[in-house]
Each structure stands twice: as C-alpha cells, then as structure tokens.
C-alpha cells in the first residue's frame, strides 16, 4: 500500500509542468510570442505575482468594504509588447448593464512617461499622468457575439417602435444610421460606452482622480474568460516607456466586482508594484 501511494505521487508529479514559484514583484518573461488566450497553458511558464488589492480610499465615493482580495498576475514580453494575464476570484458573472447593475472589470495602469518620481498610484497626478488599459465583462460578451438589443437584458421586453426603425428608412442606410445615432446621444458625442464593439479593452489617460479620458489611440487589446472560480483576462499593450531588460518600472492593477456595485472610484486597487523583464526562465 505504501509503495503504491509513493508510485502514484511520483507519476503525478512527472505528469505536471511545475509552475514557477510566486514572485515578489511582477516579472515579464521574454518570449518568442505572446499568448492572447487567458486559458493558454503557456501562461503556466510565467512566474505569478499575487498582488494584494486595497480599497480605493483617496476620493469620494470610496469603497467601504473589501471585496476582491487579490489579483494574480503573470506577464510575457516579446519585441515591443507586453502581455499581462490577470486572474481574480469572482463567484458571480456580471456582464449585463442596467440601472443598478454593474459590470465586472479590471485595469492595468503604468506611468505615462519615464520619470524620476512615479506618479501617484491612484490615477496619477497633474503633469505626471498614467496610461490605463481597461477591460469590461459586458464589452467582452458583446465582442463574443451577444446582440445589441434591449432583449439581451430583458428577454421579455416588448418594443413597439423605434423611430430609426421606421419602414420608410432603409435598414443600414446612411439616413437610418444617422437617425439611430441621434437617438443615442453618447454615441453621437463620440463616447461609445455601450452598443456593438470590436474590442473589450479601451485605452485611457489620467492625471489625477476625475480626469480619466480616452487615449489618443487604441494601443491595447485583450480578452477575458471565466475560470472555475472567477475571471482571467489577458491585456496586451506596448511596453511602457522606460521598461526594458535593463530598466525596471512600476505597474498597478484594479478590479471592479459588479455584484458589489463597484464602478468608477468604487474599486479595489493596488499601489505601484515594481515590474522587470527577465530574459530567461529560472
């Protein structure tokens, strides 16, 4: 019996790829390519950093109670890009927006430019900003093919009529599109928060709380999937300025738990965490 048990353990260990031990900081391992799928087994080769999440407690409205305790981060880099895999526990899927309903989300934050002093970790500061890659679960669902109708939220909704769906307007025509935009004022103002999307990630710039605004160009891409215990999201973006194999930098993360009505400033976040690039695996 004792021999059989030892044999079983030995066989089990031989069949596993041993994951690297957790690391104290975020380490991006140089790789030939960057896995974009959070479920890709290649991620097991990257060392994992367990980042403790803190309450956003700088500005009102603050988060009052701890929700998500930590986010597990792995990273690869190839050429001029870095891919970060964020995984966190979340028992509920929150990916349908509505009044009083909020979406699961996460974000990666890096200093906007190399500086002797890093900006404030909570959204940067005037003259010393941060770049943010923001992923949201409802956008992910839309990218994966969920429709853009009210019935996706309320399956039994009865819609009499939308003016832009009038029979006199040819569906898909310029006139019809123009009229539809007039009935979606945010979209008309170039602020695409809902509706059909091609990416679940948006790029943002901030120079302090309340200053968040779109980045000049979309430079990040990403994808998220459900794990048995929560979410795993890969965000790929250009290497932050100042981060190289010979020059470490700083990085920060944030997680929003939709079921706890977290949104905007109501979030769990980290402070700055050192990030470095490692040429070889240990």
């Amino acid at each position, binding site marked *: 019996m004792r021999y059989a048990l030892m044999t079983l353990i030995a066989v089990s260990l031989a069949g596993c790829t041993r994951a690297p031990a957790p690391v104290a900081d975020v380490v991006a391992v140089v790789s030939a390519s960057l896995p974009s799928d959070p479920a890709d087994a290649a991620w097991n080769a990257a060392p994992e950093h367990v980042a403790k999440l803190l309450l956003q*407690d700088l*500005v*009102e*409205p*603050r*988060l*009052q109670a701890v929700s998500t305790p930590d986010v597990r981060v792995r990273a690869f880099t190839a050429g001029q890009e870095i891919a970060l895999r964020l995984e966190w526990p979340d028992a509920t899927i929150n990916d*349908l*927006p*509505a*009044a*009083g*309903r*909020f979406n699961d989300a996460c974000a990666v934050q890096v200093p906007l430019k190399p500086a002797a002093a890093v900006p404030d970790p909570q959204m940067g500061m005037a003259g010393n900003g941060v770049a943010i890659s923001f992923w949201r679960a409802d956008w992910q669902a839309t990218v994966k093919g969920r429709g*853009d*109708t*009210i019935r996706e*939220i309320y399956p039994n*909704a009865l*819609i009499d*009529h*939308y*003016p*832009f769906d009038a029979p006199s307007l040819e569906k898909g025509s310029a006139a019809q599109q123009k009229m539809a935009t007039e*009935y*979606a*004022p*945010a*979209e*008309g*103002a*170039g*602020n*695409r*928060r*809902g*509706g059909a999307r091609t990416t679940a990630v948006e790029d943002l710039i901030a120079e302090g*709380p*309340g*200053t*968040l605004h779109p980045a000049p160009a979309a430079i990040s891409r990403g994808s998220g999937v459900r794990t048995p215990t929560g979410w795993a999201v890969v965000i790929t973006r250009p290497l932050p300025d100042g981060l190289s194999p010979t020059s470490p930098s700083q990085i920060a993360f944030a997680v929003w738990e939709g079921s706890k*009505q977290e*949104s*905007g*400033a109501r979030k769990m976040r980290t402070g700055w965490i050192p990030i470095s690039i490692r040429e070889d695996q240990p």
Partner: protein
Amino acid sequence: MARVYNWQIGREMSYWYPESRPKKQFAAVFDTNKCIACQTCTLACKTTWTSGKGQEYMLWNNVETKPYGSYPLAWDLKLLDMLDAGKWAGSTYQGQTIFESAAAGERVASWRPSDDDYAYPNVGEDDCANQIDGGASFSLPHMAWFYYLARICNHCTYPACLASCPRGSIYKRPEDGIVLVDQGRCRGYQECVKGCPYKKVYFNPMTGTSEKCIGCFPKMEQGLQPQCFVNCIGKIRMAGYLSTPDQARPDNPLDYLVHVRKVALPLYPQFGLEPNVYYIPPIHVPPMFLRQMFGPGVDAAIKTYRNAANDDDLAGLLGLFGSTEQVMTRWVRRGSEVAGVDDRGTTLVRVPLKEPVVERAGFDRVYQIMRTNCP
C-alpha cells in the same frame, strides 16, 4: 465641502462646491390642483426625447399619484426613511440635508434604485378611485384622498447629481441654470442616478451613460417653453426664470408666485438642493402630509390660493398658465385683462381676468328640444 446659502431652508449649508449661481435660473411653477394625470406631458417628452434604445422605461417627465404612487418605486419614501425627520423653526430648517448627512466616504446620503423600480410607471396608482362594491369598506392609514404630482428634473441650484459625479460629467449652465449630463464625458458610473434624491437621472444600458431632462434647452434658448409645458391640456405649468428672494421682481410671473405671494413651494426643500420646480400645493390634502413634502409654507400657500377668486392679480396670473408657447418673463394686469410680456416688452398674449359667460336657456325654441349639458 463649501458653505453655501440655501434660501429655501433659510440658512447656510454644506455643499460639494462653492456657491455659483447662474446668470438666470430656469424655473417652473406647477399647479397641482389643476393636474388630471392625463400623462400628455409624459408623452410629449417621451416622443420628443426618449424614444431610443435603452430609454424604454425612461420618463424624464412623469406624473404619479400621491401618496402611494411613485416612479421609480418609493423614490421619496426610501430617502425620507434614511433621513432624520428634521424640524423647522419658522422658515429655517434645523435638520440635516442630504449633503450634511452623507456617510463617510460618500458625497451625499442616497440610495440606488434597481431596474425593477422603474418598471411600473403610474401602474395601479389610481385603483382606489374605482367604484367600491356596495357594503365593502376600505381602511387606510389615512383618509381617502390623493392627488397628482407631475415631476421633471428640478434643475436644482445645488444639484446632488452634479455633486455625486466623481469626474465632473454633469454641469449647470451658467447662462440659464439648466443641469445637463455631458454625454461625451459620462462613463456610466451611475453615481448621479443614486445621488439625485428625486431620482431624475436615468441610466441608459444601451448607450452606457446616464441621461436626464434637458429642460428642452433648445426651445428655451429661443424663448419657448418646454414640450411638457406647452402640451399640458390642464394648463397647470408655467416655465420661466426665477430670481433669488432678494432680487425678486413682482413683474416676473415666477418671482410673483414664489417670492411675493409665496403660493408655489419647492419639492422636499429639506433635502437641501434648492430645487427650481415649484408646486402650488393641493388644497384638499391634509396639511401635515403637505408640510413634509413642500415645507412649512404650505398652510399660507393654500390660504392664499383658496382666496384667488377674490384676488385679481393672483387669479389673473394663474390665467396666463398655458396661454402661450412663449416664455413670459414679465406680466402685467391692466384692469380686467392680464398680459404676458417678453424681455423686450413685447406683449405675447392677453387673457381676460374672467371669461365671458353666456347663459343659455335650457330649452331651445328654434329646434324645440331640451339642451343637454354635454361639453
């Protein structure tokens, strides 16, 4: 927080930003005694502004039946439950406003409606008006009375939606005091939806942003009253601009009703927002209920209103309600006629103090038939 003066509660109070009053303030008076809850105002707004995707249950204007009706569900009861019932000393409110009673880490004391709370606008609110079967009795905590409360955004002097937004996406126009959500800046955090005590900011799940009544500003900019005002068949509404009490002009119709005669009162002044839609309270409702809703001026307002038949100025001005689409910034009574006037002194409309009455005999001699009393 800054210290600002709120004349509706007769004292200074704490607010998120310093006092900054607009050049002129959009305001309105609604006469609740004339509202029949036909919802024409609701549909006028709906068809004009909220026919898009995600706006299906969004009513910038709604009419609810008080005391039981509400949209969203229990919007006022829930907040009143949260706040201590502060007392008034004369015209000074001694309790705490929603800004002063905010918990640590919050900007205002507030609650967040769920989407279900918006699902029953004016559904079943009038059921007690149905005929009761012979012999049946109906017992309520109060006497069997109700009245209709038409509601739009109050375009408050101290908006809680504006104070709640952590990224300054809501602004109060300096030129007319209309409060707007910047649709290019809103990120849909829904803090404003939670923060507004009147629950007059709505989240649109299809655009992902919050939206609200815009005071029909494209019309107001042209000197025209908003859609819900001009389509009101009961002629209960008048839109215009309101001065602060110290600047009140008796020839400004809203100043006259609010400041001079004090017959129109703010909705829940104790919340502390200095709302700019004023209500002539219903005269048949127990004053105790009305004092909670409209403040300590209720009794005097009802007394003044009840005497309107003997008050040519007040009766005349009330007759100007719904008489023209144009904004009357001034008014004047000349004998038995009242006129609405614009900023340039142009007479917009003239209304007789008393409509001529013609009495017809009950029997029509020409057609040899009794006349009926149908309209």
